[in-house]
């Protein structure tokens, strides 16, 4: 009896393994973490555009670059090094610290020999999960489909010498044993220019702008405490990365403080607290924000897009954009931010886009963009 | 097999409840005994009518009342139990140094000091134009006990006049100078 049961179990397991091994991933809308070949090293034949796309992306996810590149059409005109760099990033950019966690793809249109697919890539990054939408063209080559890899223009900076008017503030701080008052330097004078609290989804958002009114740089953080009708604090949060933390004299930054679980109905008052501290800082690099415009993107979302232009001779590894949107009364109605995946090389541009909520598109009359920069090995 | 009657069961339940209550009460009393006495809110009074050149803001007044009272609770705790932890936070600079040395001295000689039944009448006499220092006069009244081991070597109700300098810290007003004088 026991032996028969054992044989049945072994047979069922073998059958299920075989099914899993030979059954191709379905051509459904979602292909990602849970799909693909069960055994690493074996990819189902790319006899559909969906399968071809899934094969390439699964190998990219596993960092099997050679195998992934086999799925790329020779007509793409990219070499394997450029293909790999497209996925792994360079120059200490955000992409170099990111991993592809999953993807979803869906066909946009297809003929017998050509197809177009839209892929949503899910990345894990040091600044949180990021989502990227990309469109790919696929071609039938014999009895298999291949991905035509888009040639990505990478900034090529010619060797040059860029003079720098070096402007930097260093901080000499007193030790703990210093005489009281002997080495005091006042904290920078920073002021909240505006504050607006709105309902956003199930939670609420407090946003506005803050200005450095001093003549030295300031490291700024905005904290908000939401208070109920009885005057009790419900929650306290900080602007975290929804602000340009280092503000030069007279510089204005948007800020946004999220309270994801607290409905605005419960909030009767908001206590604002801006903390400014002295920090060593540099006036460089200067990053211009070019060709800013509000327009719909390929997915129909409304975005503010433009190009960041690095006017200096330093590489900005991770550019970060924070944008404030105003209504026709000049009131801040939304603050959005976004990280740029590629490094911003000296004297070159990189595109950026931040989303504007659909409900606010009609309200937005004006906008203001500031750029944070994170550069490896520099403060 | 012995069966309990309903009455006996109820009685047992009641006794169990009473025992739990008694335990909770005893625990609470024990934990209170281990703490230094808290200073009652109304035992610290602050008069800011003579402060200048800057007028003491209402929030500042409340902050000073709260933080000065809490600092004395910490002081009493530190000197009764010969521990330095309570001094971190409410005291800085000279005040902290003196209290630290006093605790270390008590530890070395096996002494303890108890500050009980405290009351403090504070008068703000100077508040800096930029609000970065306030000078207070405290007429403090308390029962001071000095113990050598378990033996009380001194027990007296005293009135001591303190000149106090407080400065704003990151999240509270802190005592920088706590200097007793024979009279103001």
């Amino acid at each position, binding site marked *: 009896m026991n032996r028969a049961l054992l044989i049945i179990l072994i047979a069922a397991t073998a059958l299920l393994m075989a099914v899993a091994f030979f059954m191709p991933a379905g051509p459904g809308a979602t292909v990602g973490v849970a799909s693909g070949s069960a055994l690493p090293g074996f990819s189902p034949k790319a006899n559909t555009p969906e399968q071809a796309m899934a094969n390439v992306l699964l190998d990219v996810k596993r960092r099997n670059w050679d195998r992934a590149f086999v799925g790329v059409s020779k007509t793409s005109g990219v070499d394997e090094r450029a293909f790999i760099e497209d996925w792994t990033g360079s120059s200490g950019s955000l992409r170099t610290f990111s991993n592809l966690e999953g993807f979803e793809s869906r066909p946009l249109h297809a003929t017998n020999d050509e197809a177009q697919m839209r892929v949503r890539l899910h990345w894990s990054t040091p600044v949180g999960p990021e989502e990227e939408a990309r469109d790919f063209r696929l071609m039938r080559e014999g009895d298999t489909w291949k991905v035509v890899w888009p040639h990505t223009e990478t900034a090529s900076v010619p060797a040059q010498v860029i003079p720098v*008017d070096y*402007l930097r*503030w260093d901080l000499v701080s007193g030790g703990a044993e210093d*005489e*009281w*008052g*002997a080495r*005091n*330097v*006042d904290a920078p004078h920073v002021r909240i220019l505006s504050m607006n609290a709105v309902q956003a989804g199930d939670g609420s958002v407090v946003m506005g702008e803050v*200005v450095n009114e*001093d*003549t*030295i*740089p300031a490291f700024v953080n905005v904290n908000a405490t939401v208070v109920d009708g009885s005057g009790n604090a419900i929650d306290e949060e900080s602007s975290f990365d929804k602000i340009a933390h280092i503000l*030069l*004299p*007279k510089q204005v930054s948007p800020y946004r403080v999220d309270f994801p679980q607290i409905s605005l109905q419960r909030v009767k008052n908001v206590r604002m607290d801006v903390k400014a501290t002295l920090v060593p800082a540099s*006036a460089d690099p200067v990053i*211009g*924000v*070019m*060709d800013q*415009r509000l327009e719909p993107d390929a997915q129909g979302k409304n975005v503010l897009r*433009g*190009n960041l*232009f690095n*006017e200096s001779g330093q590489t900005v590894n991770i550019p970060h954009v924070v944008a404030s949107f105003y209504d026709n009364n000049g009131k801040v109605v939304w603050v959005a931010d976004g990280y740029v995946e590629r490094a911003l090389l000296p004297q070159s541009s990189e595109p950026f886009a931040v989303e504007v909520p659909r409900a606010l598109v009609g309200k937005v009359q004006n906008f*203001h*963009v500031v750029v944070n920069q994170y550069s490896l090995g520099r403060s | 097999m012995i069966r309990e009657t309903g009455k006996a069961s109820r009685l047992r339940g009641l006794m169990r409840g009473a025992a739990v209550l008694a335990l909770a009460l005893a625990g609470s009393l024990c934990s209170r005994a281990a703490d230094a006495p808290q200073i009652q809110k109304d035992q610290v009074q602050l008069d800011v009518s003579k402060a200048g*050149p800057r007028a003491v803001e209402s929030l500042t007044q409340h902050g000073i009342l709260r933080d000065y009272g809490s600092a004395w609770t910490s002081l009493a705790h530190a000197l009764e139990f010969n521990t330095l932890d309570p001094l971190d936070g409410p005291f800085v*600079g*000279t005040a902290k140094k*003196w209290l630290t*040395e*006093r*605790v270390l001295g008590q530890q070395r*000689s096996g*002494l303890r*000091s108890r500050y009980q039944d405290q009351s403090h009448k504070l008068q703000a006499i*100077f508040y*800096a*134009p*930029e609000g*970065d*220092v306030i*000078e207070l*006069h405290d007429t403090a009244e308390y029962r001071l006990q*000095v113990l*050598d081991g378990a033996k009380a*070597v*001194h027990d007296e109700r005293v009135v*001591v006049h303190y*000149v106090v*300098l407080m400065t704003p810290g990151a999240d509270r007003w802190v005592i920088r*100078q706590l*200097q*007793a*004088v024979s009279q*103001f």
Partner: protein
Amino acid sequence: MRRLLLLCAGAVLLAGASAGQELRVPPSVSAGEDATISTAGSGQATFYVVGPGVASKSSVNLGEEIQLHGQDLRNAGHYMAIVCSSTCQSASFYVIAAKPTNLSFLVHPSRVPVGQENAVSGVALPFDTFHNLVLSPAEVNFTMNAANAALFSRSVHMQQGIGWFRTSSGKTAGTVRVVASVADLSARRAVQQVASDPCNLRMQGQRTAKGITVQTEPVRDCSGNPVSDGTIVSFGAVTANGRSTVDAPIKHGVARAQIEGSGAAVVSVASGVVIGNELHIGAQQ
């Protein structure tokens, strides 16, 4: 009757013993100076002294003087001397601050725009060598000097260990030296007088191969002081492709920026609430 007599004798003996331990302390001691406490009676006793920064215990012989070293009396405040044999006796005394040897001088603000009413203030507190606040009355002199000019001078009577002043900032940007002095002691602080908001902000621009280069004229306030380097000047350009903005810091008195694009552009400039001139620059030929 015999029992009553015995009780009375005991009481007298006890009273005698107590009186024998009597402590005589000095009315007050200057910080850091030695002091003497005298006792009466005879035999061994335990002597305690408790005060700010001090808690000690030692054996003494009653009837001898107890020497307190200056090292143990550095901190001003209330001290308790206790002597115990069969019973305990105590006496208290005060240590007062010695002569001032340094001044704590709090000056605000560190940076002040020129021409501001009552914008600079200072507080001086004298301390002795042991960090005791010196409470005895004294005169303190406050002076404020720019590079070559005296801006302010005042003598103030210190009360309860505090002297203070308040004055307006000067008219010229630069470092101002603020000094507080009590007798031969002095403390110096520096206040940076900075320019006010820019006045008459103007820029020039020209088309280059890469786009448009714009540069302000030297940025000054209405008194002619150069606005601090690092101050942000915002350049904006409206073109057919949208709007471009560059937040550029002033360096060596001017701010400059490069705006990409080849089309015609209307360029504006602002710093804080001050708006400058506008330039109309044609498209690249």
